């Protein structure tokens, strides 16, 4: 705790304590950093979280089990599908429900589209923070097509509310499959173009390589998850290592950071792992659309959901890493406790240690390479 107390500033030096955010354009939402600097060099940056706290976990204890589903969209609004799925899976484990195969497949398709959309925003805003505006627009343009596809699937562009306890809400609309495949054909070409556009740009690489290196053991100690962990060279993916849903049926690689242009675990690795993951997501969607089984899209769920007393934990691989839902039931139709574990919060914890000795401009690169989403930190 005493780490958070600010040191006395030495006036004879050029030491300063500055507020970075909460309205800074490169903090990706409302996050405040207290930055101790000596000129241009950071002594440390202390994340001050809590500006977007909306007590979503508490709401989960007040509204019933099905009613909490739209609120999970708001946990992570850039990748809401995963938050939906994690909660649905946790309650299904409480109810001991078997989800039909078609619903599992539809979940995977929706999730992977959502992962591509989220990573496009992640890498797009990262290039924008570094100073390149055009790639962001290219990313958003592709994301717009995904948004249209998801809108046709479930009726909303950001707060999807697509998953239900026991399945999904809607089946694929007519002609959706062809549109999705046409988009994926275009998207695979787009990834190569995006690499030529910005990823291998000399200035971009120089800005990111060897900056803010997080070694593998340190990433594990701090509980980093998802692309941030894999960027540090740790080979861990919940989809592959703790399979859930329909994921065991698909072949995909888990890209890990190898120090593409510098040290393993630098900002460029975290960036490029996301680019590689998008290609894998596209691969998964193709397989899922090919092998989509027929059948029901939702299990038989009682209208008044009353699970037996107990607890359940469900882990999903969100776009920002492992997301866990912990639901405790006391036998009534409302949860006794809902707890969400998100990847962005642990990513914020590591900033204080990694930021020592960075330049102020590199702090922006570090924050954006961790791809934190403000509502996911506070919930």
């Amino acid at each position, binding site marked *: 705790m005493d780490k958070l107390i600010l040191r006395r500033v030495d006036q004879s030096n050029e030491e300063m304590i500055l507020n970075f955010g909460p309205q800074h354009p490169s903090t990706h939402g409302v996050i405040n950093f207290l930055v101790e600097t000596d000129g241009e060099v950071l002594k440390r940056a202390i994340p001050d979280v809590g500006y977007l706290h909306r007590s979503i976990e508490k709401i989960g204890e007040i509204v019933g089990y099905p009613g*909490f589903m739209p609120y999970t969209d708001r946990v992570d609004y850039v990748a809401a599908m995963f938050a939906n799925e994690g909660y649905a899976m946790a309650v299904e484990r409480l109810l001991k429900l078997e989800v039909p195969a078609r619903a599992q497949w539809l979940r995977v398709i929706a999730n992977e589209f959502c992962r591509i959309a989220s990573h496009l925003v992640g890498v797009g805003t990262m290039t924008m923070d570094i100073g390149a505006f055009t790639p962001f627009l290219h990313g958003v343009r592709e994301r717009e097509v995904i948004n249209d596809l998801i809108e046709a699937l479930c009726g909303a562009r950001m707060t999807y509310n697509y998953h239900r306890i026991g399945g999904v809400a809607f089946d694929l*609309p007519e002609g959706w499959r062809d549109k999705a495949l046409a988009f994926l054909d275009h998207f695979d070409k787009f990834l190569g173009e995006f690499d*030529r556009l910005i990823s291998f740009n000399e200035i971009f690489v120089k800005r990111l390589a060897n900056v803010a290196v997080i070694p593998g053991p340190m990433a594990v100690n701090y509980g980093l998850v998802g692309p941030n962990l894999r960027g540090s060279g740790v080979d861990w993916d919940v989809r592959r290592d703790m399979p859930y849903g329909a994921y065991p049926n698909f072949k995909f690689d888990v890209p890990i950071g190898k120090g593409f242009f510098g040290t393993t675990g630098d900002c460029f690795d975290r960036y490029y792992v996301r680019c590689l993951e998008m290609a894998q997501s596209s691969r998964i969607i193709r397989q899922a659309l090919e092998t989509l089984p027929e059948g029901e899209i939702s299990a038989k769920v009682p209208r008044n959901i009353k699970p037996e007393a107990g607890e359940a934990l469900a882990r999903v691989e969100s776009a920002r890493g492992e997301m866990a839902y912990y639901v405790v039931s006391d036998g009534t139709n409302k949860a006794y406790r809902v707890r969400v574990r998100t990847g962005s919060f642990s990513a914020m914890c590591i900033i204080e240690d990694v930021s020592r000795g960075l330049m102020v401009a590199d702090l922006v690169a570090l924050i954006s390479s961790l791809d934190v989403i403000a509502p996911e930190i506070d919930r």
Partner: protein
Amino acid sequence: MPQSVREYTGAIRDTVKSFWHGLSITLSYLARRPTTVQYPDRTPLPVRDMLPPRYRGFLEVDNTICTGCQACERACPIGCIQITLEKDPTNPKQRLVAQFDIDESRCMFCGLCVEPCPTGAIQHTREFEGTHRYIRNLVFRWADPMNPFPVYKVDKTAEYFPRAPLGSLVRQRLETLAWDRPAPEFLPPEPPKPAAAKPAPALKAAPAPTAAAPAAKPAAAAPAAAEAPKAPAANPESK
């Protein structure tokens, strides 16, 4: 740091080369047609007609086929639907829906109320352009309290339920009612203030006076405490 002149010029060459790679892609897009469309007047169709049929816009209730089962009210996680049923004084077996209010300003368009509806009376439309100067005008009253509508008797053998074209009812409301019309008055009139005059009683007093004013309809449909400080705990009357 570059160690030699060769390295130094090499870095410059690489930078210019990769710079040109990126710029050539940007330039290639200069000649293509733009992906953006000017809203709202340059779209080929009105935007609501270009949206997919599952789009979740404003809620619409067709009260000719509403069974008054209140399933939507129970399903709503925020409680923005308020339904009151009463008995028909002339025919005791007939129930009437005296109040069917949907506060569209609080609705989060999740679609959970649509799923349990037995007849499809409550549906999301593709209407989304609902700018209003006063937020209380967004409380849509689908039942007239002065003239309650009878509940629909479900025919078990019916193949489908005769529903008005989806969106027509909401569109009619949005088009006929001016966006800047005055906000509805509150009924019943404001109760006399308690002797101990607090500086801002509206927020604190919101839950309590519902019990204190028995003349009020049960549970305010839209407490609207934040935007209506002068009228604590009363029902909006949108007539």
